[in-house]
């Protein structure tokens, strides 16, 4: 049988979450088709076709599929489901929104946030904010999985392009409509896929000082910026920057936590980073228990000193 991977994209280009989820999808051992659904998304399908090990790309190009609304998308996936015994999506906001809807319509129990594929029906996933790892075996005839992308390396581009086949959208009168969006635009790398992340906490004190202290360090390291829940709740940083149990889960090569105490909900989002640095004036802060390098110092002196020490 075959696996269907649902591509993550923003209408312009393929998101790297797709290539990471593809690595997990290929580990199931069956050929993998990728579904690219959206409006005017053929260039994205062409990008997806180049990924190594893709059997074919199924392209659903229709105005009703813009904005990745869950209702038309789930009907589309359902219309294709008979060809597949596994349906996979990255555990992005879109994937988490869509896939349980597909699973319920197939009468299947979804496995969320898979971090390891042990067998085609057996998976590891974190529970309790990553404080425990559960091994689960699916008894359903079809597996529906969301993939924690931080746990898988991206599949590289291959030598040959897979064929692209168009499929029709399933038109039913929509009961939900897109109204507007307010997306953050940034020159910095995307948080979920960045090699280096600099995150700030409530100790930054205000949105202005958050930017004034964190941005120069992030710029110097070509890093993405993240934030603790406390900093986001206080309005110092946007919700799309939250790292943690219910925000984004990241595993960069280098994670620098600035003025973050290290609540378990935050650790859940970053403790699989390769190297963790903590800067906090409270030497007892729990963040130091997961940090490879801890600097107990006031962040307002430590961070500028760090930028200076990094040189040009």
């Amino acid at each position, binding site marked *: 049988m075959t696996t269907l991977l649902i591509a993550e994209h*923003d209408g312009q280009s393929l998101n790297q979450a797709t290539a990471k989820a593809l690595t997990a999808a290929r580990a199931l051992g069956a050929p993998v088709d990728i579904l690219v659904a959206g409006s005017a998304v053929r260039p994205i399908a062409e990008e997806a076709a180049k990924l190594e090990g893709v059997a074919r790309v199924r392209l659903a190009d229709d105005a009703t599929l813009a*904005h990745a609304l*869950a*209702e038309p998308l*789930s009907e589309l996936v359902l219309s294709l489901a008979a060809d597949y015994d596994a349906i996979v999506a990255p555990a992005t*906001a*879109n994937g988490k*929104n869509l896939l*349980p*809807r*597909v*699973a*319920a*319509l197939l009468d299947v*129990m*979804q*496995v*969320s*946030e898979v971090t390891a594929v042990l067998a085609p029906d*057996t998976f590891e996933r*974190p*529970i*309790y*904010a*990553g*404080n*425990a*790892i559960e*091994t*689960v*075996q699916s*008894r359903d005839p079809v597996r529906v999985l969301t993939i924690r992308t931080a746990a898988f390396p991206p599949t590289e581009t291959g030598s040959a392009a897979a064929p692209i086949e168009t499929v029709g959208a399933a038109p039913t009168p*929509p*009961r*939900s*409509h897109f*109204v507007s*969006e307010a997306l*953050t635009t940034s020159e910095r790398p995307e948080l*979920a896929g960045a090699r280096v992340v600099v995150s700030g906490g409530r100790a930054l004190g205000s949105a202005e000082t958050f930017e004034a202290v964190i941005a120069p360090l992030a710029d110097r390291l070509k890093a993405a910026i993240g934030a603790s829940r406390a900093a*986001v709740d206080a309005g110092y940083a946007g919700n*799309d920057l939250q790292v943690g*149990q*219910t925000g984004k889960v990241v595993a960069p090569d*280098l994670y620098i936590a600035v003025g973050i105490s290290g609540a378990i*909900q935050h650790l859940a989002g970053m*403790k699989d980073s390769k*190297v963790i640095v903590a800067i906090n004036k409270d*030497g007892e802060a729990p963040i130091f228990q*997961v*940090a*490879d*390098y*801890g*600097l*107990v*110092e006031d962040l307002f002196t430590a961070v500028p*000193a*760090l930028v200076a*020490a990094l040189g040009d």
Partner: protein
Amino acid sequence: MKILVPVKRVVDRNVKVRVKADGSGIDLANVKMAMNPFCEIAVEAALRLKEAGQANEVVVVSVGSEKSAETLRTGLAMGADRGILIKTDAERVEPLAVAKLIKALIASETPGLVILGKQAIDDDSNQTGQMLAALLGWPQATFASKIELGSDTIEVSREVDGGAETLSLAMPAVVTTDLRLNEPRYASLPNIMKAKKKPLDETTPEALGVDIAPRLAVLKTVEPPRRAGGIRVASAAELVARLKETGVL
């Protein structure tokens, strides 16, 4: 309009859970339990709509053992009008089964809106709301940070990966709550006393005609690998030197 709010009893958010040494699960003996934080936000959202005159009844419902009645009483003490316990002693009830149970209940309760937490902080599944919407054929707005109710539509701002987006849904609809939708109220002592007299009905999965047998077998539960202990550095300069040694810079 009636608003239905499904709520879950989970380990209190401040408890650091322990994995049983034999790998059979989480040690829940004598652990403090509470309403799932996202469910509290859902109850609060429903109460605010009622207080604004946009809803006339808030019904909380939970699936679980007799002890889940305590969680329903918490919702009643916050201000919900009545509670329904779908009683089962099953150790694990998966999101798909919960969605089916709530759907069965909705056949008789007929709410105009269902508000749920986006995920429970125990199994971190993030599925029940979406599954419920699918089974009912209703539109959904997950990860809500703002709700505005119209006459027969609801406008919801959602937290998405790149920022926020706003959707308009035809009612009836399902909304799941994110962290920043509101700050849930604490129940006052008089309201806790009053809640004891509010109606709390019971039903069962059997009475609702729903098979709740798990589809996933949990083979084992283990602690995540621990990180090796780190070192303290004395200055920013030493930090840079150390990071250069590791090769990440």
